[in-house]
């Protein structure tokens, strides 16, 4: 009956987005408190990091702290920061004195690019190996599973370091640390991000691979796959429309959840490959206790994770009509 059909207009999506925005606000508030308190709980502070030398007069430290408002109780500092943040002012970097937003903006683009390439790589590698190992189950899939086990066991910074080391020793012409901005040369830019993205993608690709394998095995024993074959459909069609379309929806969800770990991994990878992204900047900012920058990056990362999850949920509901927006 036409009237009994699930409405599939834009309104359910809008409702989903509205509900999520409220949640996002709550999540960001929570994250901002945790990040604020944790940074100040760390030994040392900006004044000590800024003064640099080991023997500094207490008065100098006091002066620095007073100048940046660090002499106030933490909750006063937080409320002041929150008040400004709510008006769209994330403050200025303690180190460069430039507005945090203009400091982070260009670096965020680089990290977003790196993470996106890494996510696509993880999907491609994990999807292929997962499908392969499901198809070869009981024969040679142990090769895939062994490689997966190794990729998962070795942390990405070890892989990255080894790659940098090997490239430096045996392929010096590769010129690994030659990061090129996108606007200068788009191709060279993407080329310079491939190896770092691969290091970043490796661990996530294992998650994707194992999930793909499990999903494909589960779906391929479903009756509708047999029906599709009995219909005389060509294998490519059975694989695409029947097997993969059903198997990949959960896989995409899992990959979306991994964006958080990709962002986390980018801190190390960007530092190792000298990529001027947000991760490397966060690392530097933590070292120099540049509180406003750290605060802003953490918030931005949290917002990205929430946003990607929202996208995944929308995509999921689009791909599978049984899923309702809630």
């Amino acid at each position, binding site marked *: 009956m036409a009237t009994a059909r699930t409405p599939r207009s834009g309104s359910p999506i809008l409702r989903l987005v509205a509900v999520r925005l409220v949640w996002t606000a709550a999540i960001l508030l929570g994250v901002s408190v945790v990040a604020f308190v944790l940074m100040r709980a760390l030994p040392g502070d900006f004044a000590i990091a800024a003064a640099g030398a080991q023997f500094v007069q207490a008065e100098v430290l006091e002066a620095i702290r007073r100048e940046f408002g660090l002499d106030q109780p933490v909750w006063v500092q937080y409320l002041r920061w929150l008040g400004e943040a709510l008006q769209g002012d994330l403050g200025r970097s303690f180190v460069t004195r430039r507005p945090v937003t203009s400091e982070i903006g260009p670096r965020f683009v680089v990290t977003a690019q790196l993470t996106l390439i890494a996510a696509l790589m993880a999907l491609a590698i994990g999807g292929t190996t997962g499908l392969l190992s499901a198809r070869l189950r009981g024969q040679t899939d142990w090769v895939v599973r062994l490689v997966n086990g190794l990729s998962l066991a070795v942390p990405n910074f070890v892989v990255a370091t080894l790659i940098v080391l090997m490239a430096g020793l045996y392929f010096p012409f590769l010129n690994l640390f030659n990061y090129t901005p996108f606007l200068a040369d788009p191709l060279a830019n993407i080329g310079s991000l491939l190896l770092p993205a691969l290091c970043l993608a490796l661990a996530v690709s294992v998650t994707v691979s194992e999930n793909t394998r499990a999903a494909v*095995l589960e779906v*391929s024993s479903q009756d*509708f796959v047999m*029906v599709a074959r*009995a219909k*005389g459909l060509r294998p490519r069609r059975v694989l695409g429309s029947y097997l993969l379309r*059903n198997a990949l929806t959960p896989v995409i969800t899992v990959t979306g959840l991994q964006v958080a770990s990709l962002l986390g991994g980018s801190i190390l990878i960007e530092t190792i490959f000298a990529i001027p992204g947000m991760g490397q900047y966060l690392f530097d900012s933590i070292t120099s206790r540049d509180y406003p920058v750290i605060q802003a990056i953490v918030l931005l990362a949290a917002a990205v994770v929430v946003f990607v999850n929202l996208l995944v949920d929308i995509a999921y509901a689009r791909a599978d*009509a049984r899923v309702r927006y809630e």
Partner: protein
Amino acid sequence: MTADAPLLEVRDLAARFVARAETVEAVRGISFDIRPGEAVGFVGESGCGKSVTARAILRLAPEGSTVALSGSVRYRGQDLLALSERAIRAVRGRRIAMVFQDPMTSLNPVMTVGAQIEDMLREHTDLSRTAIRERAVELLDQVGIENARARVHDHPHQFSGGMRQRVLIAIAISCNPDLLIADEPTTALDVIVQAQILRLLLRLREQMGMSLMLITHDFGVVAGMVERVNVMYRGRIVETGEVDRVFAAPAHPYTRALLDAVPRLAIARGPA
């Protein structure tokens, strides 16, 4: 080919599941004929090899298993077991179509029912897009789905079990097959719906003049549906004959046991 020549001639068919260490023979020595327009029943308990026999005709092995087939399956004189993969695909669905047991799991949940009829038509016919869409509506209408024009856009979860089986039957008959293999088509449905589906199969068979291979564990389903019946037991056909004769005078003790297993509506007198 004369009008009386069998449509399907199965001789000495055997199916062996090949696992790593051992081989399990599921059916052996299966021989039977299905003539054009004829309905033949296959009856036996679970695991007796009825489904394996049906799938062997189209060379459909369960996913992840290897089944070695021997003997011959001649369709209009052509041995299906000797065909290439591509050639057998042109037979599947187009010449010999199948309806399976569980309508709840036999439809792809992420495709509309219309799309699942249409991909079959696209595979086997040269019809235009609009013609294919029209044919899908027509087919849903033919199997008794009301408001077919709107329902082609619905997904399987918006249909009940009985309605889904109707959709699957619509898919199966979409290319006017010569033979419809119905593998326990009513087992997963409740009694009222069972009767409706069986009536639908009867009606379609008459309208389209196709042959029917009806597989069931239930003698009650076979009665009134088929002309001849094959009784299967432990991978073999143990009795074959006109359905009335088999009902009236079962020759094989297993057939007698199966017939006795059909519950009769009677009031029990005293302790059973």
